[in-house]
């Protein structure tokens, strides 16, 4: 039923004069976990932002298709979940309010069952009505996972997923990621070996640097 596929058709990105990566080709046609590797500053974050359409590549195309039909860019955001250290949630709302507003702004139903399950899994259920500004950075990171997964997206992008997390948090993330990989494409951008160990295939951005 879920025939999502992601095609990256030789994309190149330059910032002014600086080349970030060149002619990257990747095709994700079945559910599973893909990895993007590369040291700090190699353009992993830029690459994943290209994937979700926030940055447009200098050359090339990123094609998201569902059941062999390309997803309109206007609706793309409802098919993608995204976790990144740069992501900031609204401080002045509680976790639950945040999630409610996200669902409303996305125009999707607030899936209480799934969200409660995720809140429980990430040990945030008891503190769901606390303001996010009172959260620790690890708790914020876990809340970002709920934000990314709450609408059951077809593509989940995890940029450095385990930053700020303690060991039990990491274990939890790996468990959830493995569960989600059954029904969605997951892309992990990281230089942490334990993250990359989850992936079935790894793309090293360092191989796409030469002019």
């Amino acid at each position: 039923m879920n025939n999502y596929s992601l095609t990256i058709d030789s994309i190149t990105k330059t910032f002014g004069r600086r080349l970030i990566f060149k002619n990257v080709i990747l095709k994700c046609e079945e559910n599973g976990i893909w990895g993007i590797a590369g040291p700090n500053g190699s353009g992993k974050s830029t690459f994943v932002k290209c994937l979700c359409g926030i940055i447009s590549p200098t050359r090339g195309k990123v094609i998201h298709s569902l059941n062999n039909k390309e997803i309109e860019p206007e609706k793309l955001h409802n098919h993608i979940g995204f976790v990144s250290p740069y992501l900031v949630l609204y401080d002045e709302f509680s976790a639950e309010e945040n999630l409610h507003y996200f669902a409303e702004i996305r125009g999707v139903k607030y899936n209480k069952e799934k969200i409660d399950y995720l809140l429980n899994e990430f040990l945030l259920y008891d503190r769901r009505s606390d303001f996010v500004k009172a959260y620790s950075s690890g708790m914020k990171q876990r809340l970002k996972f709920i934000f990314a997964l709450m609408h059951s997206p077809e593509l989940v992008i995890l940029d450095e997923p385990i930053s700020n997390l303690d060991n039990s948090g990491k274990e939890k993330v790996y468990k959830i990621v493995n569960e989600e990989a059954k029904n969605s494409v997951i892309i992990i951008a990281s230089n942490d070996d334990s993250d990359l160990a989850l992936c079935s295939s790894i793309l090293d951005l360092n191989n796409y640097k030469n002019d």
Partner: protein
Amino acid sequence: MIWQILLFFIIAFVSVAGIAFPIVENPIHWYEFPLIPGLEENAKIIFFHVPTSWLTVIAFFMSTIFSIKYLRKKDLVDDAKAHTAAQLGMIFCILATVTGAVWAKFAWGSFWSWDPRQTSIFALLLIYGALFALRSAVEQEEKRATLASVYSIIAFVTVPFFIFIMPRIMKGLHPGSADDTHSGPVVDFKMNSNMLLIFYLSLFGFTILYYWMWKVGYKSLIYKDKLDKQIK
């Protein structure tokens, strides 16, 4: 090279002719201009004021065209072209404002009187100023190009208001503009053929000059860019 020399002669001739040719009541010789009642000697500034304000508008228009082109293709060369056009537009805008103010001093009695055209050129000056302020505020090249393009397009769509609508609204503001023929287009009244010739020659010469400056300007920007790249 040939046309540059030609351009030199045109501009030189226009400058000399525009300033030095006498204005007499009944022109007989080819170098004599007719007397235009109400303008008299002031009429000579027409050879410099009209081309500069014409180029201000042309530069603004070109800057918008290349901004649109940049947003479509995201090619930084287009941005360099738009930026150079805006820079030149700023220069000509200042020149047009100054020559216009000088003319206004002698024709209407004061340097500035918020005539519709003066208001429009003032707004254009503000737009150019804002555009440069915006450009200097953004570090990253692509973002700077995009934001400047968007701003110049937004500014461009407000221009019709000044051109078509301001004259209607401003007429109550200052005395003389409602029945003052000088604020209207000047080309079509009582210029004799030699005056018209010099006028069009001046318009033509300045336009070519502008085009040349623009070409040199944007090419130097591109070369500067390439050099920076090599150094890095």
